[in-house]
């Protein structure tokens, strides 16, 4: 340890690498190792020929950097009679994910906000029901939802799949936001009410900006969930709107057919690129001290 009282200390504290700091980075590195190990194997595998893969040296580096499997995964891997890789459903995925994410996050935010601050009669019951709903395995909903969307004329449509995602996202997003709002000083809400703002005004002008970090978290979660979903997309979206993951599933899953691991790895990573990029850029919205300076005490 360095002397905490150097007689010559002056001005800005120098950035020093304390043992605590070193420990911190060591922890992060070890954690990263644990987290990246599968990714490493995956990436390495995606460059290997099947022969190399069969040799079962999972940690070995590929003999050469062969991008062909990535190319194949993106644009020419076969699934059934279509050999267009995972790129096929990309825009469909976007078309499903964007509205479904926005709507479900908004619905969760509004619901959480109403439950946290306004507490109209029945709020507790509703919240309990929503919470319990989160435990039901989605697949149980499949048949009833099929009947319901068919009855609404939304089966096999973009609207249908978006609706389904919003419905299934409700417990998660509501939970996120209700608990987040519970930590926001209620005085803020009071002040806005005195300022004459009503339900929606307070929500949009005050609560939504204040929930930025949670919007990001909920957004990332919903986006990932919706982007990665394939069963609901398969069932509800209709053939014209099948998401990318249906193709991914068709490429990657097989019971008795061949498994081209290299292409599978590449396809998986490619499909996950959009969420990954989102994770990376979302950092700047994890703002520090978002309610700082608002209340005293």
């Amino acid at each position, binding site marked *: 340890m360095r002397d905490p009282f150097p007689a010559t200390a002056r001005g800005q504290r120098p950035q020093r690498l304390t043992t605590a700091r070193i420990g911190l980075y060591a922890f992060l590195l070890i954690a990263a190792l644990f987290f990246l190990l599968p990714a490493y194997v995956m990436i390495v595998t995606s460059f290997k020929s099947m022969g190399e893969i069969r040799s079962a040296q999972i940690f070995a580096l590929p003999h050469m950097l062969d991008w062909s499997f990535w190319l194949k995964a993106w644009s020419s891997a076969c699934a059934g009679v279509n050999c267009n890789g995972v790129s096929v459903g990309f825009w469909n995925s976007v078309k499903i994910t964007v509205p479904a994410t926005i709507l479900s996050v908004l619905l969760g935010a509004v619901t959480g906000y109403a439950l946290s601050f306004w507490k109209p009669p029945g709020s507790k019951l509703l919240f309990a029901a929503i919470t319990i709903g989160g435990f039901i395995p989605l697949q149980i909903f499949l048949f009833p939802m099929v009947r319901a969307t068919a009855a609404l004329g939304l089966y096999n449509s973009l609207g249908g799949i978006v609706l389904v995602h919003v419905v299934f996202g409700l417990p998660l997003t509501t939970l996120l936001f209700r608990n987040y709002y519970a930590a926001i*000083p209620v*005085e*803020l809400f*009071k*002040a*806005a*009410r*005195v*300022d*004459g*703002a*009503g339900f929606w*005004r307070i929500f949009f*002008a*005050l609560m939504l*900006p*204040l929930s930025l970090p949670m919007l990001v978290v909920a957004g990332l979660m919903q986006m990932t969930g919706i982007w990665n979903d394939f069963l609901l997309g398969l069932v509800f979206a209709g053939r014209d709107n099948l998401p990318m993951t249906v193709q991914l599933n068709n490429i990657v899953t097989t019971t008795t057919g061949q498994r081209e691991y290299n292409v599978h790895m590449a396809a998986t990573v490619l499909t996950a690129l959009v969420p990954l990029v989102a994770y990376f850029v979302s950092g700047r919205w994890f703002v520090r*001290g*978002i*309610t*700082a*300076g*608002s*209340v*005293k*005490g």
Partner: protein
Amino acid sequence: MPVPVSLRSVAIGYGSTAVVKDFDLEIAAGEFLVLLGPSGCGKSTLLNAIAGLSDLSDGEIWIGERNVTWADPKDRGIGMVFQSYALYPNMNVEKNLSFGLQVAGMAKDQIARRVKRTAAILQLEPYLQRRPAALSGGQRQRVAIGRALVRDVDIFLFDEPLSNLDAKLRTELRVEIKKLHQELGSTMIYVTHDQVEAMTLADRIAIMRDGMIQQLASPREIYHRPANLFVAGFIGSPAMNLISGALVPKAGKTFFRSELGTVELPQAAAQAAEEHAVIAGLRPEQIVLDTASGLPGFAAKVSVIEAMGPDTILWCEAESGVFSVRMPGDFAGAVGDSVTLGLDLATASYFDSATGKRL
């Protein structure tokens, strides 16, 4: 437009504990009412209830002709300064100020004008683009005041709005608030712990204690004729000097008997039909240092001298206790001096020993 506010047997509580009980208060249209009371007596709770931010457990609140007990805050025509500020952390100062106006649908240029004027009054111009987190404590408080002042409401609720401001600014803002009050004629309910503020701003002062009103009267009355011992002790700094004794009626005259001797009181001061244990209260300025004034006096010794600028407080130890005496600022005594204290018992307040009520 000035509106009256009326609280009718209002009760408010948190959970099972009642904070305010059976509270009645009529505030006239355009009145400036100051709420004074010890910390935790329920002032903020009351303001919150008037604003509609917390539910009553009993009673009614009327604003003007309307029973607003169950009305929404936004329908009550109030502006409020929160004790804890409650600034919108995501908005800069300008937005904080203009938010309420925008909600009310005011025209852009008018909003700008008002915000500008308010910011000028509060000397906030340099900070308009800052977020609350980047402001000093006093600046935050000013934003909180500004947020109420920009708005055009019938009733202003101020919860210790100037507590974190320096004396100069505080004086200036006090004058501004008074001006605003006169201009708008709005009803104002103002919580403060600053007696100068209370005395100078108030039409009437309500002294609260444990959720109940102890005295509701003009500042001058409260200061000079406190209704009971609590008010007497609460108002004035340093507090009143209290002397236990008895009123003794004798031959049509009334005498005050205490350890310090027995003195005849003028008719106006106090009267008693029979001997009566009382406590006499004397403000520090009702005690003088020399007996030349002809007042009954006794010996004491100066133990502490507090120079406070315009005046000096002497703490004098006598046999019967410690007395505080207010002297001019240029007083030139020293600790340890022997003095003779003269009590102006004729102008003193007398309280019943048992009930604490003013006689």
